[in-house]
């Protein structure tokens, strides 16, 4: 290598390939092979001790490589070139672009115009660096943005546990949203959350071990002094202003301040998983490939049984089902599981007749009612009261009261009689009757609501 160009070649080789100038590109292209050193050439120059170290290290590398597991393809996003120019869109219309704008943050969450400009450090990133800049800004607790993110996250965790957030409009903390019901509590929890390193589990534990979370959702009629009649002839509500809960009911009728726990309808996935847990079939394994779904000719989206990794995979928890855009399992979409391709800050908890039809007639529910009945039978044998008690304990986590036992016993007898009349054996008729009872318990409001 001629002396005069050595420094230039070295500088060219030390420069990252996408930062070399035209001369450096030329030098590298021409001369990189001439200055390359082969492994053999290196080996000749090494001491025996160094060689031994290399052999031992390579052995260890090979061993570690054997422990490597393959995870298949991962879908990821990355930059494919310099970011395109962004323009202010007049009236929000993409057809009418205004002036070009630089990458920046929401001005309202920044202390100055200056602070609203994204500070992008691309060193060693191989990308535009924009997403990293956004992530750092969002999680910096010293900025209004970081503080907001912490409150929003805490609020969503609270919403998940209580049905409604401390700020009831989780996607809107602004003037158009609703004010927090317990502002100090939101601040305190957000502080703990950031202090604790933004870890979710300790926060969940803190909330769930609190007195407010452990309240009952039930209200005894005597406590509020309300007379409710029955479904057919409802009486006007009267509240006893002398009682503690009566006062609460009168001053905070919507229970915004959480003077009792809210009655919460189970989320779609929890409904399905609870059915599986009740039937005893829930496959609780963690991880692994997802379970695929398919659309049947009649429009029902069901689990694709032709592509199951293992036989019991179809009974895995609902989080392991693979969702594609608008194709949710019908069992889940009917219970308000949102489409995956759009953002959803708060799920609906609707009570629509299609849910009733699903719980009554869907083959998945019927099938698991059958497994549930077998589970009960296995545990208690043929004793009617024992069966009813076991079924209540499994499905509703409580023992039935005397009225309920009587109602269910009468129903069992009636259903068994109908089945016998249809020509099946006595034994089969009794089993079917029990399966009907189990199916009915899965349909109760109590099964579908967390009390």
């Amino acid at each position, binding site marked *: 290598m001629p002396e005069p160009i050595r420094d230039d070649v070295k500088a060219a080789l030390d420069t990252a390939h996408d930062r070399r100038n035209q001369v450096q590109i030329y030098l590298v292209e021409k001369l990189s092979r001439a200055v390359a050193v082969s492994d053999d050439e290196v080996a000749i120059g090494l001491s025996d001790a160094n060689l031994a170290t290399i052999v031992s290290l390579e052995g260890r590398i090979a061993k570690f490589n054997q422990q490597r597991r393959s995870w298949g393809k991962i879908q990821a996003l990355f930059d494919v070139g310099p970011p395109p120019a962004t323009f202010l869109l007049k009236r929000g219309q993409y057809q009418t672009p205004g002036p070009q704008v630089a990458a920046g943050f929401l001005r309202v969450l920044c202390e100055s115009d200056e602070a609203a400009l994204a500070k992008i450090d691309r060193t060693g990133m191989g990308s535009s660096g924009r997403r990293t800049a956004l992530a750092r800004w969002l999680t910096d607790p010293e900025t209004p943005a970081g503080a907001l993110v912490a409150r929003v996250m805490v609020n969503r965790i609270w919403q998940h546990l209580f049905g409604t957030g401390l700020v009831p409009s989780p996607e809107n903390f602004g003037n*158009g949203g609703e004010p927090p019901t317990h502002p100090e509590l939101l601040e305190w929890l957000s502080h703990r959350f950031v202090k604790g390193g933004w870890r979710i589990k300790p926060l969940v534990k803190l909330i769930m071990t609190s007195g407010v979370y452990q309240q009952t959702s039930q209200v005894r009629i005597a406590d509020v002094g309300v007379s*409710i009649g029955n479904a057919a002839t*409802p009486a006007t509500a009267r509240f006893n202003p002398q009682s503690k809960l009566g006062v609460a009911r009168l001053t905070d009728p*919507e229970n915004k301040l959480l003077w009792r726990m809210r*009655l919460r309808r189970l989320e779609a996935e929890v409904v399905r998983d609870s059915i599986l847990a009740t039937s005893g079939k829930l496959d609780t394994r963690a991880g692994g490939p997802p379970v695929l779904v398919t659309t049947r*000719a009649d429009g029902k989206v069901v689990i694709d049984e032709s592509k199951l990794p293992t036989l019991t995979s179809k009974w895995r928890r609902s989080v392991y089902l693979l969702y594609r855009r608008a194709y949710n399992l019908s069992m889940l979409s009917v219970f308000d599981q949102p489409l995956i391709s759009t953002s959803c800050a708060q799920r609906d908890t609707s009570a629509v007749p299609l849910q009733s039809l699903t719980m*009554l007639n869907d083959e998945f529910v019927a099938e698991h009612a059958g497994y549930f009945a077998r589970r009960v039978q296995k545990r208690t044998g043929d004793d009617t009261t024992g069966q009813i008690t076991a079924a209540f304990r499994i499905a509703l986590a409580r023992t039935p009261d005397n009225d309920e036992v009587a109602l269910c016993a009468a129903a069992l007898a009636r259903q068994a009689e109908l089945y016998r009349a249809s020509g099946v054996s006595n034994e089969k008729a009794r089993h079917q009757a029990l399966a009907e009872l189990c199916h009915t318990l899965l349909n*109760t409001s109590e099964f579908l*609501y967390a009390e």
Partner: protein
Amino acid sequence: MSSPLANLNPALATQWTGTGSRRDFLQASTLGVGGLALAHLLQTDGLLAAGGGDQQQPGGTDLRPRPGHFKPPAKSVIMLFQTGGPSQMDLFDPKPELQKRSGQQHLEEVESFQPGSQDNTLLGSPFKFKRRGECGMEISELLPNMASIADEWCMVRSMFSDNNNHPQATRCLNTGKIFPHRPSLGAWISYALGTENQNLPAYVVLRDPDGYANGGTTLWDNGWLPAQFRGTEIQSRGAAMLNLHPAQDTPPGIQRNNLELLAQLNEQRRQRYPLESDLLARIRNYELAARMQQSAERLLDLSGETAAIRKLYGLDDPVTENYGTRCLMARRMVELGVRFVQLLVPIKAGGMPWDQHNNLKGGLKAICPLIDKPTAGLIQDLKQRGLLDSTIVMWTGEFGRLPISQHGNGRDHNRHAFSLLLAGGGFKPGHVHGATDEFGYRSVESRVSCPDLHATLLHQLGLDHTRLYFQHAGREERLTDPEVTGAWVVGELLQNEVSVG
């Protein structure tokens, strides 16, 4: 009729316009559980007529009927969605200049979607047009039955879309914007007005039993509106609805006994929750589900229809039976008080029977006979039953096609012009609105956008599109988003013209 808004108690209004749940509303109204149950009973007895209490206004969280902003000519909509992009210059929009210069190079650069149109050669229509009816509206020989009722149609020749790809344009037509997961027209209308028949869904979808059109179930998305406003598929073959009947046959009486026990258990438990209207709603839902089983059954049972009616819809001919069955079901639904019916064309491979990139002539000859007679039959039947005045029928694709040839014998997508047919519901019969340029490439006179169309449809249902909103993500979202889209009611389409700014 004055707007019910004027009398509205502001405290109730905030609860009732979408942000609050029904529970909030009921509790805020101090009626509590008793009030809800009472409302249910009144409703069941037909005492709570639409237009009743002055605390009502368009938009709600349940399906009970509620009045619009003003008295409407129309109550329901049947949308006949022709997925794929029907060719306007071969069906509804004759272009003599295009015929004359067929085979010549087109002087204007057109926007194409797929390769195959680079030659920019004009392609005349292989089909003949004739003046039809007293109005003299020109319709192609491909659709003789639809042409025979020309005096019923209000034809718009100046439609345009925002995008020339199927999914985006389909969303533009169905939701007003090209972006995914906004609520569809049917969902908005169900949200605004509820529905007359509580035993059937408000918004029904009748698709080809052989499969889905391009876009799948997203065509009847509720977006961010509550889930009960999503379109419910009712099958024209097999069981009418998913889970309508038990998965396995059981002896008679079994399910009734189950429901009886369920009602007893639920009612006992409810006594512990005197303040929860949800539980009562759920109890009612089981009663409703049972009634729905019977109602949906009756819908499917076409045996009561006379031979003449079956013939009118083409049920006697295997060519028209598929589409005709759904058209007849649509009429029965509207008769029973369903608010919005979305009916889809027979599909073939790819789910887009109107998408003639190649073989325009053969493709149109294949699809037109499947839908022509049933469509005309539906209009005639609605008319003879006196239902056409209160029912809007809309026949449309998501965009049109280009005047130049693709691959020598087809036409590519065209967002700049398409034709649309309306009938009934107070739309001007025997009327042609707007015009395209002399080749049919671009709408040039009295152009109508999808949001304009939506504003006009809402108007005919008694709804002011600028005042029908749903609170979402801190924004008062509206179907037409008028400040951005400039949507307005196209008064010239209406029998009783309105002047709207």
